[in-house]
C-alpha cells in the first residue's frame, strides 16, 4: 500500500542501520513513547539489529494498558446494567478488571458492543431510545477528536440516551513524569507520530529545552523508526536537544487545528491515574461542565466500587521502561495473552504481548 510499503524497504533499513552504527560512540537509552511503535520495533526485530550501544526503552503509550483499574471496574459496572448498551473499542474487551473482563460480562448476557468509530455509538443510541448507550472513551490525543465529536454531535442532535465514560490520557505529562522519576535513564524520545498529527509538536519544545532531551516525532514503519533513532542519536552525539520531525509526510508543527479546536471545546485537562504508574498531574482529559449531561460518571452512580490489582504483575514498571517483560516471573507462565494478569499482556501494543507474540520467550 502506498505510504506503507516504501517505508518497509529492506535496503533503506540497512542504510539507516549502517549510518546509526557509524554515528554512535557510546551508550544511549532512547524511549519510543507509543505502543504502536513498540509493536513495530518488536515485530520487525529492530532492537536486535541496532548496535549494542543503543537501548530502546518501551514507553507508556498504550491507552489500553494505562487505563486505570478503577475506570475499567466502572466500565464493567455499566456493562452489567440491564438498561445499558456498553460500546467499546475492541481492544478493551479482554483487559482484566478486578472481577473478569468485558467478554465475560458479554457472555453472561451484558449488551457489550465493539465499535470501530465513536460515531457508530450514535447509531446505536438512535436505534435504541429505551436504552442508555455508554461509550468507553479512552485513548491519547489521537483518539480525542473522534471521541469529542461523538459528544458534540449527540448534543447537536439532542440524543439524551448517550453518555461517555472518559478515561483520556495525554502524552507530554507522562513524558515529564518519566523524566522526573528518580533513576530515569531515558536520554531521548521518539515522539508519537499520530498524537503529533493531531497536536503538532509545540508543546514538546519546552520539554526538550528544560530536560535537555532530543525529541524526534517519528512514524511507525521500520524505516521511520530507524530514521527517528538515527536523528535522535545524531542529536545525542552532538550535544543537541531539539524537537525534530521525522514523520514529515503526516505531521506539521501546528498539528490539525480543527481537531485541536474540537478537543478544547469538549474536554478540559485533569489529573489522571495511570494503571501501574499512579496519578500524573494534568495528564488526562475530562468533559467540560457544559457536557455534564453526557458524562457517564455523573449520569450513573458509580461510587462504592472497590478495585484490587493482581500482585504478581509488574506492568507498571514495564510501562515506565524501568523493567522489561522478560524480567517478570509471571511472563509466559501464569501470564499469557490468553490469561493476562495485566494490561501490558492484553493489548497487541503492550510490551509484554509484543514480546510474547513475536517469540521473545525465555
Amino acid at each position, binding site marked *: 500500500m502506498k505510504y506503507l510499503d516504501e517505508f518497509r524497504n529492506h535496503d533503506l533499513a540497512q542504510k539507516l542501520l549502517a549510518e546509526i552504527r557509524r554515528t554512535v560512540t557510546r551508550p544511549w537509552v532512547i524511549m519510543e513513547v507509543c505502543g504502536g511503535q513498540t509493536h513495530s520495533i518488536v515485530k520487525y526485530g529492530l532492537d536486535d539489529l541496532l548496535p549494542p550501544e543503543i537501548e530502546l526503552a518501551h514507553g507508556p503509550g498504550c491507552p489500553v494498558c494505562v487505563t486505570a483499574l478503577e475506570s475499567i471496574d466502572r466500565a464493567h459496572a455499566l456493562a452489567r446494567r440491564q438498561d445499558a448498551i456498553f460500546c467499546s473499542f475492541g481492544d478493551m474487551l479482554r483487559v482484566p478488571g478486578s472481577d473478569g473482563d468485558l467478554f465475560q460480562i458479554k457472555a453472561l448476557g451484558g449488551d457489550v458492543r465493539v465499535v470501530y468509530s465513536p460515531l457508530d455509538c450514535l447509531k446505536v443510541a438512535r436505534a435504541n431510545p429505551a436504552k442508555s448507550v455508554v461509550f468507553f472513551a*479512552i485513548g491519547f490525543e489521537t483518539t480525542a477528536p473522534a471521541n469529542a465529536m461523538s459528544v458534540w454531535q449527540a448534543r447537536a442532535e439532542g440524543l439524551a440516551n448517550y453518555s461517555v465514560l472518559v478515561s483520556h490520557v495525554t502524552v507530554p505529562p507522562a513524558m515529564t513524569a518519566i523524566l522526573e522519576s528518580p533513576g530515569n535513564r531515558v536520554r531521548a524520545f521518539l515522539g508519537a507520530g499520530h498524537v503529533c498529527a493531531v497536536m503538532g509538536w509545540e508543546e514538546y519544545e519546552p520539554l526538550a529545552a528544560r530536560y535537555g532531551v532530543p525529541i524526534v516525532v517519528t512514524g511507525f514503519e521500520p524505516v521511520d523508526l530507524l530514521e527517528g533513532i538515527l536523528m535522535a542519536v545524531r542529536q545525542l552525539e552532538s550535544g543537541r536537544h531539539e524537537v525534530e520531525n521525522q514523520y*514529515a509526510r503526516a505531521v506539521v508543527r501546528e498539528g490539525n487545528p480543527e481537531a485541536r479546536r474540537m478537543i478544547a471545546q469538549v474536554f478540559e485537562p485533569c489529573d489522571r491515574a495511570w494503571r501501574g504508574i499512579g496519578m500524573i498531574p494534568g495528564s488526562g482529559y475530562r468533559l467540560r461542565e457544559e457536557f455534564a449531561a453526557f458524562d457517564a460518571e455523573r449520569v450513573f452512580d458509580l461510587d462504592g466500587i472497590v478495585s484490587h490489582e493482581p500482585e504478581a504483575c509488574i506492568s507498571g514498571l514495564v510501562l515506565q521502561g524501568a523493567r522489561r517483560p522478560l524480567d517478570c516471573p509471571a511472563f509466559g507462565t501464569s501470564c499469557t495473552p490468553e490469561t493476562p494478569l495485566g494490561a501490558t499482556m492484553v493489548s497487541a501494543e503492550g510490551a509484554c504481548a509484543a514480546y510474547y507474540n513475536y517469540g521473545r520467550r525465555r
Partner: protein
Amino acid sequence: MCLAIPGKVAELYKAGSVSMARVDFGGIAREACMVYLPEARVGEYVLVHAGFAITKMDEEEARRTLADLQALDEISAET
C-alpha cells in the same frame, strides 16, 4: 491504539450535516468522517484513525524523505 492507516479519498459526501468520505485502503473501502480535514479532495491520501481522517499525507514530503535516505551512504562515503 493510535494506529492510523493511509487511504485514498474515493468519494466525498454528507451524512446529514456531517462531512464524510469513502476511503480506499488498498482495495478495502471504509467510511471516514472528514470534519477535521475539510480541505481534503478526492484522490488525496489521508490518515484515518477511529473512523476519522486526522491528517493529509504529503506526497512531496514522503518523496523527499525517501530521496534523503537513498542518498545516505553516498553522503557518508564523501565525508
